[in-house]
């Protein structure tokens, strides 16, 4: 308990630094990402839901410190998130999430259900590639003509993607996207919905099951606790 208290204090006082490895009680899992939700949030949520202890390493933006440049040279793909397990890295958010989820019953109850989890996630990725052209301007991360991008990318991508999710929820009837228990794609979609709905209230009002799903997923006790404890960020 004394050791655990010391570790907690260090985590609070050095939020953006790497911890010394002399603390042998440190978790085996280290997640490296920027200090935003972004592509790392679903990884953090899957780890939290699975009850896996992990070091939530948040590196400052390149303009605010050298840590990312230093870490980048040690990665295979020069990107984050990266999960490090006893020193071995796994890159790419979905690869990481699937790896953790599969070991904790969060990847679908059968191989076919797992494939549908993957399919919905990849469909979201296609949506996000298009939608982010509008969203990142709306959130102020990029310059651009917000109204034009909304017309060219925001509305069309929303109207291609969310009817599929609405229908999927109607078909499963379980409140979950695949089968009758929570999977990692529930976390992925609920996170996206929260980001979009808070950036632009009303934008998803045509999709009542989608909005209900977000509420349901975010009231799962471990997810609720995580959301309450994480930094307050727009995305």
């Amino acid at each position, binding site marked *: 308990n004394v050791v655990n208290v010391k570790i907690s204090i260090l985590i609070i006082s050095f939020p953006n630094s790497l911890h010394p490895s002399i603390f042998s009680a440190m978790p085996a899992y280290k997640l490296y990402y920027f200090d935003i939700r972004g592509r790392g949030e679903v990884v953090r949520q899957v780890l939290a839901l699975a009850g896996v202890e992990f070091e939530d390493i948040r590196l400052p933006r390149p303009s605010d410190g050298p840590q990312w440049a230093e870490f980048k040279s040690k990665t*295979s*793909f020069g990107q984050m998130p990266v999960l490090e397990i006893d020193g071995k890295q796994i890159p*790419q958010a979905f690869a990481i999430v699937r790896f953790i989820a599969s070991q904790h019953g969060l990847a679908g109850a059968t191989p*076919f259900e*797992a494939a549908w989890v993957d399919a919905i996630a990849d469909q979201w990725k296609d949506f996000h590639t298009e939608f982010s052209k509008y969203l990142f301007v709306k959130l102020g991360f990029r310059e651009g003509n917000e109204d034009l991008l909304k017309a060219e990318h925001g509305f069309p991508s929303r109207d*291609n993607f969310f009817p*599929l999710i609405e229908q999927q929820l109607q078909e499963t009837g379980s409140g979950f996207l695949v089968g009758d228990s929570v999977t990692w794609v529930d976390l992925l979609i609920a996170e996206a919905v929260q980001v979009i709905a808070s950036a632009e209230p009303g934008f998803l009002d045509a999709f009542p099951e989608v909005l209900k799903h977000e509420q349901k997923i975010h009231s799962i006790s471990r997810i609720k606790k995580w959301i309450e404890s994480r930094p307050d960020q727009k995305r």
Partner: protein
Amino acid sequence: KLTYFDGRGRGEVARQLFHLSGVPFEDNRIPMAEWPAHKASMPFGKMPLLEVNGKPLPQSYAIFRYLAREFGFVGDSPFAAAWVDAVADQFKDYFDEIKSLLFVHFGFAQGDKEKMMKDVAIPARDKFFPMLEKIAKDNHNNGHFVGASLTWVDLLIAEHVSVLLKYMPGFLNDYPTVLSTVKKINSIPKLKEWIDKRPDSTF
């Protein structure tokens, strides 16, 4: 039953997995002109679509991973399988950048090939292929991109590299380990057999 266009494109890896495993399947090829009539019956409005005992599964990588798991081409440990997924997703990001030039080569779009080579293809290549070359080297140049046995990401990359060699010869001359890995993959007897007998297509 696999439903896709009459070409290799985003369906070919699934066909290869069936042929490598010896599991029979219906190779349902839809002519371009008939595609609009089928689109509404696809869960996500796109192909490829896999049907397993009549139950549909969309999205190419979900299909590849499902078949690879069933047939034993997913990696020899959960950690290896995660790396197969990671390399595939990194490849997908690269492919999204270069596909606009490939579509011009395939005849699906108009474009200035030389300009696109300079503006689109070379930057995309120079971001991705050095990383892939190192991955192949770190894997002891053993003829696979991840682990010591054939996985679906080997097939994914080998198919794409074959397309590049056909339409853009010399494009990957700086990546000899990638090229030798692809050569070894394409010489696997059951795969070579399929490659030699499959229908021809531009894409």
